[in-house]
């Protein structure tokens, strides 16, 4: 058996086509160098099925296999799914830490310490006002000053308490918005489900759905900020997505199971929002501690101010001054110049109310501090994993330019091979005999 005369043309042609396809892939990579979530692709070249040549002569000839050129076997998407899983785990941590840090920083801002407008300073002013009154127990001005310092202190306690409540309410509201019918979870899950379906169909049609997979991975990255996301790759190419601590998978094939109930254990931004707005969360603890400050303030002052309670209300939200300046008590027996009550109240400085408040502020401060450092740590880890992912999947323009030249040269060489074949065939046809001419 001899070699077909035109086989060389076919081989050169396959080279031209394959190099062209590889250049197309390079073009796609360059075009998407800055596309979020894009993974670089590689056209994997493979030799074609060889032509089997039977043994020509029983004496010297073994059979042979003659190469028939090249073709693109697959368009491979360069992606490391292990890094994706790591990224999503850490991204949930980051989502949680960022939310915690933001909300707690807001709470810290509400306390406005250290400043002359904070509760600590107002409390100190209140005790000082009683000290002034003790020096001039019959002074109407000193009594007015005591009542006004007390009113300001009570107002500030009311305001801080209500602002903490507002922050809690906003956190709950944010959770509702994200998980609601037109929220991010529903929207992203629906897109993942739709992509699942498209990818499944593409695979059935033997088409490699690289770009669809990129888009699906990007959506899963976004979901992982909201809560812990676990992805199981199914045989048909679809992803089954578990979300937070929801009972059912969020996405199963082309089906979306949402809404579902989450708890603070869901992780991510949603877990943090539930934890912060919930009854045992940091903000609720601050409110309780502030109530403790208000209660011990009211209790200690009222115990000494025996004629009529100075403060009403025993929580930070309800505490208020109950007396008029003329009703301020300075002495136990109501004598004009006696000052023992005023002195005793002034001596409450440094007492339980102040100590409780100082330890509350220390608590808020260390909560914010650790939330900030959690955020910075998570950010660093996420950045590091993202760098690794970029290192694997990102487009390097230098690399693509090199590939471009390689494939271009390959294309030129194949074209040259084709020309040589053509010339050889020309020689054969034009210059060997005149039969048929």
């Amino acid at each position, binding site marked *: 058996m001899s070699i077909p005369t035109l086989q060389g043309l076919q081989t050169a042609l396959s080279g031209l086509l394959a190099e062209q396809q590889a250049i197309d892939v390079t073009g796609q990579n360059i075009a998407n160098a800055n596309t979020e979530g894009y993974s670089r692709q590689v056209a994997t070249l493979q030799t074609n099925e060889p032509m089997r040549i039977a043994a020509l002569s029983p004496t010297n000839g073994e059979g042979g296999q003659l190469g028939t050129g090249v073709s693109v076997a697959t368009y491979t998407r360069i992606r490391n799914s292990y890094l994706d899983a790591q990224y999503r785990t850490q991204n949930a941590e980051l989502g949680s830490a960022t939310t915690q840090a933001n909300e707690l920083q807001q709470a810290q801002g509400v306390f406005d310490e*250290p400043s002359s407008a904070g509760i600590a300073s107002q409390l100190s002013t209140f005790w000082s006002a009683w000290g002034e009154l003790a020096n*001039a127990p019959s002074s109407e001005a000193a009594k007015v000053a005591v009542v006004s310092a007390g009113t300001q202190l009570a107002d500030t306690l009311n305001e801080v308490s209500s602002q903490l409540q507002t922050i809690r309410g906003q956190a709950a509201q944010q959770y509702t918005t994200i998980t609601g019918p037109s929220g991010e979870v529903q929207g992203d899950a629906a897109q993942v489900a739709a992509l699942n379906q498209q990818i499944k169909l593409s695979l059935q049609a033997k088409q490699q759905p690289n770009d669809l997979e990129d888009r699906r991975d990007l959506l899963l990255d976004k979901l992982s900020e909201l809560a812990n996301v676990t992805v199981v790759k199914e045989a048909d190419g679809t992803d089954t997505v578990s979300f937070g601590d929801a009972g059912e998978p969020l996405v199963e094939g082309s089906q979306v199971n949402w809404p579902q109930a989450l708890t603070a254990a869901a992780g991510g931004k949603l877990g943090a929002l539930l934890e912060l707005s919930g009854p045992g969360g940091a903000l609720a603890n601050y409110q309780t501690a502030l109530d403790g400050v208000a209660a011990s303030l009211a209790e200690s002052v009222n115990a000494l101010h025996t004629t009529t309670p100075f403060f009403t209300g025993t929580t930070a939200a309800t505490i208020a001054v109950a007396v008029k300046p003329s009703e301020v008590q300075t002495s136990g027996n109501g004598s*004009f110049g006696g000052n023992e009550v005023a002195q005793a109240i002034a001596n409450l400085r*440094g007492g339980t109310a102040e100590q409780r408040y100082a330890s509350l502020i220390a608590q808020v401060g*260390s*909560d914010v501090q650790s939330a900030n450092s959690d955020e910075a740590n998570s950010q660093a880890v996420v950045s590091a994993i993202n*760098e690794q992912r970029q290192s694997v999947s990102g487009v390097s323009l*230098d*690399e693509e330019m090199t590939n471009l030249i390689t494939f271009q040269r390959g294309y030129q060489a194949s074209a040259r091979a084709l020309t040589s074949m053509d010339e050889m065939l020309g020689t054969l046809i034009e210059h060997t005999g005149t039969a048929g001419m």
Partner: protein
Amino acid sequence: MSTRITNDMVIGSTLADINSAQAAMDRSQSELSSGKSLLEPSDNPVGASQQIALQSTLDGLTTYEKAANDGAAWLQTASASLSNVGEVTQRVRELVLQAANGVNSQSDLNDIAQEIEQLTETVKQDANVQYAGQYVFSGTATNTPPYEQGASDAYAGNAGTILRTVGPGVSVQVNAALSSVLGEGQAANDGKLLDTLRTITENLHTGTPAALHAVGGEDLAKLDTNLGSLTSLEADVGAATDQLKTAESRIQSLQSTTATQLSNVQDANFAQVSIEFSNQQAAYDAALRAGASIVQEKSLLEFLQ
């Protein structure tokens, strides 16, 4: 396998470095412009709670200082008044000696008696002295004059004490019980100063040898006893004044210690922050320059024909 470096990685890390350099500079800038290193509780949680306690202690010391100053002024008023009463009583003593020993006609005795009556009114006037609108010898009934001018010698005040707190658990009594020396006059027959003065006047008006003998004898003895009580009252006031002065100097030294502690907790160390700031500026500058040249870096593209 060597790490592939892609364009996104380079740009991302350059941006992160520039951001962190800028954040550090922003922090130093806030410290320099506010003069505080403790801007939020999260900067130093323990320091924040110390700051609250120290600031309150400092405010408390100011209250103590005001109380000490106010108490000292009150005592000064009382002291001046007591020394007036002392001088008046001495003058009465001279008159008593003159009346008891000399050869005096009844009209002379009447003149002496009249002077002693006037001096009695002076004593009551001195007892009615006020500090900042408050009667200092009325106990806690500071809106009531302790003695009326005229015949009645009844004490209108009470036995209450007025204290000034000048330290944790440290109180000083600032009102002197002048009524314990003056008494309530003849109606009470208590042998105190007013009773004695009235009796002397009465005996002088009587003018009999027995009466004059009583003036030079038991009345003079009572007068001396009362002078003694007055002196010891003055000594009490003096002691209280000393106590307040001591307290004041102790408060001042505590104020300076506490202010130093507070400054250590909350104030920025300007020298240190300024140097840090210069370093951060240099780092930021370098990050920007490096970033600019990396982002604009020539790629392979420019070398390909």
